[in-house]
């Protein structure tokens, strides 16, 4: 009998990868989202069609890119288009199934902040800013957010709405003219949060093996609701872990 062990980052990555289906088109953010998408493509979703905002369409990189525009992305793409084209003809036109995003802060309605911690005019911490995220969150058919769990990151209300999740609740996306469904899952190193179909508030719907729901609630800055039928993430397989580690250099 084999004892499989893994890190919390690894099970987060594997869980995010599993959320992708074969042949989906995925607009991939750099960092954790990129790792997860590349794991999916090397395991159960070989036909995953990855787009990076640098204009690389249908790329199949042989190793993980450090940036959104590494040469390996262009070398292996079906085609490389300009930045206006990737945003206008591909993202804005509604062709992308899922946006894979990271975030610095997220709130109970899955609104995302990557701009500032604190006041915009006099910030405590200045973050990189919007990048492609506001329109990825608006226009992809749905969005998956991948980020590590902490009270600093999971807040009642984000300091700055860089990208709209579910606004302040039901009907907000429609009112704002956002055509995609918005964040349908937030995958963390502790578990999985999904918006309640009625209230649109994020609810804990799954935990990773060995994680207690209370530990997740403790790491969340609002009074996190827990689903009645809380799922437990199936353990990563050897094959999944081996792909994650080959990509990240972990062991």
């Amino acid at each position: 009998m084999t004892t499989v062990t893994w890190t919390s980052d690894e099970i987060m990555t594997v869980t995010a990868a599993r959320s992708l289906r074969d042949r989906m088109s995925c607009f991939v953010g750099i960092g954790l989202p990129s790792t997860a998408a590349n794991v999916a493509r090397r395991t159960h979703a070989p036909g995953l069609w990855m787009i990076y905002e640098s204009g690389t369409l249908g790329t199949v990189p042989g190793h993980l890119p450090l940036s959104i525009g590494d040469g390996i992305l262009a070398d292996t793409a079906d085609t490389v288009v300009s930045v206006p084209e990737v945003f206008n003809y591909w993202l804005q036109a509604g062709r992308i199934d899922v946006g894979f995003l990271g975030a610095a802060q997220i709130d109970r309605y899955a609104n995302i902040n990557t701009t500032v911690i604190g006041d915009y005019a006099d910030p405590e911490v200045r973050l990189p800013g919007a990048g492609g995220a506001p329109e990825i969150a608006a226009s992809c058919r749905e969005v998956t957010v991948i980020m590590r769990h902490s009270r600093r990151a999971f807040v009642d209300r984000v300091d700055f709405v860089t990208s709209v999740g579910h606004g302040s609740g039901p009907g907000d996306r429609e009112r704002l003219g956002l055509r995609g469904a918005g964040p349908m899952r937030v995958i963390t190193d502790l578990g999985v949060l999904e918006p309640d179909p009625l209230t649109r508030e994020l609810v804990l719907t799954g935990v990773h093996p060995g994680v207690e729901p209370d530990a997740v609630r403790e790491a969340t800055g609002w009074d996190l609701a827990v689903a009645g039928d809380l799922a437990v993430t199936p353990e990563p397989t050897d094959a999944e872990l081996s792909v994650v580690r080959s990509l990240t250099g972990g062991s």
Partner: protein
Amino acid sequence: MIVPLDEAVRELVHDGDTIALEGFTHLIPVAAGHEIIRQGLRDLTLVRMTPDIVYDQLIGAGCAGKLVFSWGGNPGVGSLHRFRDAVTSSWPVPLEIEEHSHAGMANRYVAGASGLPFAILRGYSGTDLVENNPNIRTVTCPFTGQELAAVPALNPDVTVVHAQRADRDGNVQLWGITGIQKEAVLAADRALVTVEEVVDTLDPVPGQVILPERVVDRVSVAPGGAAPSYAHGYYERDNEAYRAWDAVGRDREAFTAWLEELIAAPTTPEPAGRGL
């Protein structure tokens, strides 16, 4: 047309200019940025979708009064500490910012290249960017009544890009990830292109963008001029240099030492591998 880089910068860039040094991870005009630092230009409005470490350096050197951008970070590494320091502590000088999304910035350049005063997009709706940026407005579709975001055209005084090659007439060829460079050049009043090499003939390459010499004001030869970013077909991205910048940029003293070294160095291209 083809002149040394220090001369090209002296001729085209002036204090107070709005200047875009564009490059989307690939082909970033680093050598030109360093020359701007060396020449001590001041009060520039720096424009770029993805300001990375060369913008961190320009900001830390006090060249910029304003930054117009959509994502300012050290790609894959983390934050830009000189940028943070300028925004949060006005060091070495205050830095005004105007902040967009990538889609908004890309369309601003498209409008600028197209001779239009503004661009429309589906974007920004519901974000806090809107209330913090008077350059994000709305228009109503005269056919459907839908409300869309509107952003003003971007027309820099000067755009600087780096490319793989130019011919002796100054026609420029770049390929690989070409980002927003064509639009940034066409939107600008003046354009400077640094190149890896000058060749007799620009043999066609798949995925190429050609900038005809009539839209280019100066070409300067700067082999390795995009390093530590990369030039597709010439050398690869120096990921270690990006990682190493974090420690330098994080500390005012370390940065100041770096800056003094840069200024003391002659105007020469960055070292980089060739023909990878």
